[in-house]
């Protein structure tokens, strides 16, 4: 059974709100435990609206969200408890920090979910290892930390609820290369440690090629593709037609192919490309 199933999800905003809001139309997909799912699409394609349904922040206009086969809105009074099952890390999460120590801030989520103090302490120790926060940081004020460190604390605050599914909206936005690599690594570590399911929104196709098992492609509020990452990136022409790119390294491969070289169409990471091209250059068997 899939851990998460989205069935015919539609969300329309009433016209009264003066702000930009993106509608979502008839989206259905299901996610298996342990998968890493990427969501790509333009700003305004409905990605953020979609993920805010997964933990019950938004209520579908039509359709339903099934978690372990059960509709999350079955008992609307209990919707708050869904949030420890589906964690959601917003864009620039460091802007949500508010406590006077890092420890207390990370403990906010687990406390709300009714964890006892002993359990909170154990969880925080585990999570700090995953996000790479040293023990001495826990008693510091989160506002004295650097930007990258604040991001870690904020992500830890959601991870500490130990959600089985964790959703990230642009987790690396605004970070420098070192910070980006660190965040990508902690997401993978979290999944491996807790056998969790991960959903990531990102504009960065290169990151997606590295970590995502499957991709959801959103365009104008509709899900236009949902498939294994390699199958999605193979459809470079279609992606281009809705203004999305494949990873740069794949674009190079496509040009080389046009120049008459014999290039397979499943190269999406630099490592794979290097391996293939070096073998080709040394005259080895490229089909291996």
């Amino acid at each position, binding site marked *: 059974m899939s851990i998460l199933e989205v069935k015919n999800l539609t969300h329309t905003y009433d016209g009264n709100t003066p702000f930009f809001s993106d509608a979502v139309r008839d989206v259905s997909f299901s996610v298996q435990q342990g998968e890493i799912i990427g969501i790509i699409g333009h700003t305004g394609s409905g990605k953020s609206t979609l993920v805010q349904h997964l933990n019950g922040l938004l209520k579908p206009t039509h359709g339903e969200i099934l978690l372990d086969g059960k509709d999350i809105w079955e008992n609307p009074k209990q919707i708050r408890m869904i949030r420890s099952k589906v964690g959601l890390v917003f864009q620039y999460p460091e802007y949500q920090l508010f406590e006077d120590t890092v420890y207390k801030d990370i403990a906010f989520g687990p406390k709300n979910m009714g964890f006892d103090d002993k359990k909170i302490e154990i969880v925080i120790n585990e999570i700090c290892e995953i996000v790479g926060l040293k023990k001495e940081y826990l008693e510091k004020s989160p506002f004295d930390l650097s930007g990258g460190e604040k991001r870690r604390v904020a992500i830890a605050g959601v991870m500490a*609820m130990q959600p089985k599914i964790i959703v990230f909206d642009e987790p690396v936005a605004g970070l420098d290369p070192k910070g980006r690599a660190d965040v990508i690594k902690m997401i993978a570590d979290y999944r491996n440690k807790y056998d969790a399911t991960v959903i990531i929104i990102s504009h960065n196709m290169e990151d997606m090629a590295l970590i995502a098992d499957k991709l959801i492609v959103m365009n104008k509020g509709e899900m236009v593709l949902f498939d294994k990452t390699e199958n999605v990136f193979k459809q470079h022409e279609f992606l281009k037609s809705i203004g999305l790119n494949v990873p740069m390294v794949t674009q190079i491969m496509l040009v080389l192919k046009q120049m008459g070289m014999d290039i397979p169409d499943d190269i999406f990471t630099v490592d794979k490309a290097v391996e293939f091209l070096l073998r080709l250059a040394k005259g080895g068997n490229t089909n291996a």
Partner: protein
Amino acid sequence: MLNDITFGQYYANNSFVHKMDPRAKLLILVTIIVFIFLAQNAVALSLIALLIFCGVFFSKVPLKMYLKNLKAILPILIFTLLINLFFTSNVNTQPSWSFELFLGLTITNLSLYRAFYMAARILLLIIISAELTYTTTPNDLTDAIENLLSPLKFIGLKNVVHTLAMMMTIALRFIPTLIEETQKIMNAQKARGADLESGNLIERIKALIPILIPLLISSVRRAYELAEAMECRCYNGGEGKKRMKQLKYSTNDYTAFFIVFLVCATTIAVNFIL
């Protein structure tokens, strides 16, 4: 794109009233408010009412917009009506008739008259104010206030006027941004299990802390960055500043002034005659 300014009550259109100088509208508003209270009898008040309804007609704002506005103040209106109806003390004149309801609550012809007057005045006040906000953007209003207050600079209040106007401009600019930000922070804390909906008063106030603190910190950061950006754009407290949009009275405004003057003069006359 012209219809984009949804903030505030502004109803985009291109009517006679919309095109008037915001200063003229503001001055006329103040004048009419004064005369709503100066009008001593039904005829005088009807004259003012007629003037206001002409304005409503020329503003080309749907009547239903005005009604929506009235609905919001209905409780206040009814409250005033009742207070005046039952608690009007008659010192000078004896009422020609009176009617006792219960518990000593009495309606007299005088209190009825007075209640009706108060209700009518409040109604007119609301309508004329709504007319201004429907036809004038908050930005134009800010400009008009700054301009009208500018004589204060001769008594050494120059900085006060400029600072006030700058504050209003920045507030108008940042209110939507801050509303959006509040929403974002609320969602982020809800995603961490924050319970904003249940509990007693104290619990609810406590639940606001995780929202207010990040909002405050972010506002301070914004203020700091904005101050630097303003400095980079040669802002130095309004010294030697000139406005791109110079306010100018047009024929429309003079016509409006003239009509308002006529009606007001008649009102005074009617006050004396009747």
